[in-house]
């Protein structure tokens, strides 16, 4: 069960090698989390992540999970929930893709969208149903400011996150009053493996800062969390910039 501060005792991460997710898990382990499920494609990286978390004390399990295989989501997640309550599901999988390459190769673009959006819709709905059956829990969805307004430089990724963000907001409204809390997290540029070598945008942040913001959001039962918080203002201004000008902004 979560405590008065929204801190979970058990945690399922979908996308178990995500740096943001792992930073969040480490932070929550330092508080109350004692059981962690890391779901992801079987890989040495997943096992390493699990071993590193195990060293911090909790019981850590790894589970084979593929965002691109929605047909299996029901079964994979069902098995986890059958083992006991999951207080928080962190939907963290996602790929950045390669904008230029994906524009040339539509099949690759589709894979980005299928992972970030279709996979998340499937896993999100399955997780939501399980959380609703247990009458409590948080579904924390890692969205991105990239979904707030599509930019020339990464609109394929951005559009997938826009879809995910809209989906998660709607899901949150659908689950209002069911004891299940859906929180959409919109980080800006996060310095991590995924963004290695990319030019940083202003207000860049770190996985640890996202983890801090998630903990705060859980306590406040927030529905939307921006990281850093200033992005909320910045993005609300950017949303209203005319297209012609927006196109020419070096973002």
């Amino acid at each position: 069960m979560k405590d008065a501060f929204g801190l979970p005792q058990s945690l399922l991460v979908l996308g178990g090698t995500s740096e943001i997710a792992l930073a969040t898990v480490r932070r929550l382990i330092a508080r109350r989390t004692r059981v962690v499920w890391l779901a992801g494609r079987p890989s040495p990286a997943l096992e390493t992540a699990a071993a590193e978390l195990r060293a911090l004390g909790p019981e850590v399990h790894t589970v084979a999970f593929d965002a691109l295989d929605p047909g299996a989501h029901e079964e994979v997640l069902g098995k986890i929930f059958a083992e006991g309550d999951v207080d928080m599901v962190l939907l963290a999988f996602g790929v950045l893709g390669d904008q230029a390459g994906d524009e040339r190769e539509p099949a690759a673009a589709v894979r980005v969208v299928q992972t970030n959006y279709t996979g998340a819709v499937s896993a999100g709905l399955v997780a939501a149903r399980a959380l609703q059956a247990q009458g409590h829990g948080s579904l924390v969805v890692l969205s991105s400011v990239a979904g707030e307004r599509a930019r020339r430089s990464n609109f394929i990724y951005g559009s997938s996150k826009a879809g995910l963000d809209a989906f998660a907001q709607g899901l949150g409204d659908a689950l209002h009053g069911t004891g299940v809390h859906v929180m959409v997290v919109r980080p800006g540029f996060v310095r991590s493996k995924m963004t290695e070598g990319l030019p940083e945008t202003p207000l860049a942040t770190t996985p640890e800062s996202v983890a801090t913001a998630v903990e705060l959001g859980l306590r406040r039962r927030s529905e939307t969390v921006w990281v850093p918080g200033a992005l909320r203002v910045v993005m609300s201004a950017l949303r209203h910039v005319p297209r012609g000008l927006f196109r020419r902004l070096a973002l």
Partner: protein
Amino acid sequence: MSASTAPVTTTVTGWGRTAPTAARLIRPRTYEEAAAAVRECGARGGIPRGLGRAYGDAAQNAGGAVFDMTGLDRIHAIDADDGTVLCGAGVSLHRLMEVLLPLGWFVPVTPGTRQVTVGGAIGADIHGKNHHVSGSFSRHVLSFELLTADGEIRTVGRGTPLFDATAGGMGLTGVILTATLRLLPVETSLMSVDTERASDLDDLMARLAGTDHHYRYSVAWIDLLARGAATGRAVLTRGDHAPLDALPARARTRALEFRTPRFPAAPAFLPEGLLSRTTVGLFNELWYRKAPRARTGELQRIPSFFHPLDGVPHWNRVYGRGGFVQYQFVVGHGREDTLRRIVRRIADRRCPSFLAVLKRFGEADPGWLSFPLPGWTLALDIPAGLPGLGAFLDGLDEEVAAAGGRVYLAKDSRLRPELLAAMYPRLDDFRALRARVDPRGVFVSDLSRRLAL
């Protein structure tokens, strides 16, 4: 199933309004309906709930059933000569006072609110300002009827394992249906109250330890925002039921009248941060200054002496949407250093807490998970949104556990489960009894899930 018991799925919280979870709310009106509700509660079990005054998650059951016991609200029999009452578990202490005071009887123990049920009072084994004299609520319970997981109704008498597991057992042994209580005879419905100020914590503890035995009721409101030499300054209010001859002649004909003031309820939406260090600091300063240095024999009504907050319905809303946490712990006699250290830590931390109370407990009662220990108990309300509060309270827990003390489960919403066994040495007995009486785990609450009770 009749309309009155048709379950409604709704989100439920404790009085602190933190950690809402969804459950089917079922309100049985008869034993049969209660038995049916327990039988049909499903895989995620059920938990009895009274008037929802437990601060944390004791009367919530995510995804399962919550039995609203306020439907069993009959007072079945009163023995006005011997001073006992047999009543349904859903009867509130408020109702008992309304009925019993005109007959010259009072409830044996009342907490800071009248809005608790008899079943809840046993389940949390509540205490009041008279703990140093009268012990906790269960000491005055002669027997109760318990609906257990097998659907049987058992009459449970004092001195049995089931009685001791149920007193303070947070509703996890079964559903209490009725209880027989021993009452306290009173001549009037007024209190004779002595008020005095203590200039700091040591002064306060000396006064409580030195003269508490002169009073049936004793409590100290403590200013936890005062620092330096004034750390732990307090206002003591102690008293007893006023004898008839203490009343002016005119008032003696209406000596047993029970009247309760009622103010407008707190509005449903209040901004967060209303209770800040500034506002609470100001309130505490005024409260301390307005108290007389020493006054004796003041006549007060029962609500203003025992239940000042009951006058404002939904006062818990003043903490805003984020809710609040109540932290109450006890440490034994001889552990005054721990108490001093904790008070200093709270004062240094500047927690905006305007309802902090210090009390000296008397002898403990046998309930396995009953909270009181002979020693000192401090209770304070803190807005849940205070940054870093979780880790801060974890630190206080460590001190309390190291001193052989414990925190109160009826108020808890955040204890680290690992510390529970150290705080409650009879926990294993409790678990073993539950495994025997309720092998399928029918009775479950968010509290029992969180702390693996």
